[in-house]
């Protein structure tokens, strides 16, 4: 069974390039061009991991999407990677993982280092798998 990755990004080219790369590494990729559609797919398709840009067309849209995702029953712990170029380009702007309402698992700067992306996803999925397995055994 192949793992499913949801890419939420308003740049179709980014989604295409990274999506094809993930597909050639055995992932099933679905994508959404905005937060609303992304949220819908996260609920409907139950992806194993989400890659999400936080600065999309409506500037803060990604943050709202993330917040809503975390408030959706069943999706509170879905692995989400925030992927964005803002981390390196906006001085004084940072999202600290400690900010509880964000609770994103990690962030990845754009352009994405592809081998590292694979490692991060694998690591997260193994963690989640272990957690689920132990949860199920308990």
């Amino acid at each position: 069974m192949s793992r499913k990755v949801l890419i939420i990004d308003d740049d179709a080219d980014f989604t295409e390039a990274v999506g094809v790369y993930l597909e050639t590494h055995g992932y099933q990729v679905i994508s959404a061009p905005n937060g609303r559609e992304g949220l819908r797919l996260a609920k409907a398709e139950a992806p194993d991991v989400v890659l999400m840009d936080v600065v999309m067309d409506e500037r803060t849209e990604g943050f709202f999407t993330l917040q809503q995702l975390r408030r959706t029953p069943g999706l509170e712990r879905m692995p989400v990677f925030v992927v964005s170029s803002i981390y390196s380009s906006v001085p004084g702007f940072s999202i600290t993982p400690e900010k509880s309402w964000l609770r994103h698992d990690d962030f990845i700067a754009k352009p994405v280092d592809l081998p590292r992306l694979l490692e991060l996803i694998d690591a997260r999925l193994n963690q989640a798998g272990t957690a689920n397995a132990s949860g199920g055994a308990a």
Partner: protein
Amino acid sequence: MNPETRSATPPAPAAAAPPAEVMVVIDDDYAMRLSCRQILTKMGYRVEVFEDGAAGLDGVARSKPPLVVVDLKMPGISGQEVIARVHELDPEIVIIVITGYATIATAVEAMKSGAYDFLPKPFTPDELRLIVGRGLERRRLQQEARRLQLERELLKRKFITFVSHQLKTPLVAIHQYLDVLLRLGDSPTAAEKRDEWLGRCIKRTEEMQDLIRDWLTLAQAEGGALTRHREPVDLGHLLQQIALTYEGLVSSSELALQCAIEPGALVVQADRQALSVLFDNLITNAIKYNRPGGSITVYGGEDAGEIRVSVTDTGYGIPEDARPYLFDEFFRVGGTAAPRTSGTGLGLPICRRIVTELGGTIEVTSETGSGSTFTVRLPVGSATPPQPGAQG
């Protein structure tokens, strides 16, 4: 009854200031405190008076007045020191010095320590009123200038941040495509995707080039460099030339572009290149936000020394709530039926800037769902009549 409450119509303050603002008067002379209080109260201010520097400074720290009247010669803390300490508290407080020792030397001394102006005793109520009014007006202007400066800096910083993000987005896409292509080597996937992806990379570099071009154009327009060279420009001729460059795009988009200005009919004294950029942007927009089967019409006319050119499209229109922001940098109209279009978000800001530099105006009227009209009005300028035999 207090005589002051009887004065039905106190003279209006020389400077428009909120009525309940506090003024502080520091003077060891009782009669002086009393008359200053009366004059300033009649101007509509609340007045606090103090008989020495120490008490006065406490009062200033507590009430944070916009203006302080201080006597230069007082027992205890001197007027000079009061001036210095008031400005330590807040350099924007206007200080007016009064003194019985009206010599050039004391005046110079007081001004050097940062007082706004100097009033020799005895003075008339009008003299105090005038000087207070002027002092407050200067303070207001200074504050306004500082606020505008801050706003400009903030906008500039925001602008640079935004431009860098707009440049970085296509750069990331290109990087990602090339990186994946390299990693895929000569796999079937790479072979399948290569041409399409390289084409997309070229498109994205074009996007960056457009942004850089518009960014530069806007900067040039803002500095006035784009509108410096004035000459008589035949608008009918210019617009028909622009229309020609769009022939291909117009027919492939199933549109009709018509310029209803005859060559020679409208001549304006302006910068030819600036006008080209201006109308090129307006016509591009009219094409981009139009619908198949639609039309773009350019009308023109002249009334009362003013030239009017309008570009009308039959597109999706602009929602009313978006119209006030239409000429702002990077503003994109959302929430219409229009498909997402590419663009730098600087076209209309460039238009507005050019029109302003040329001494004209630009405005938009729009009907959601049925189209928009952009109207440019320009002063004819000291146009020399079109030369006989000139092209057009």
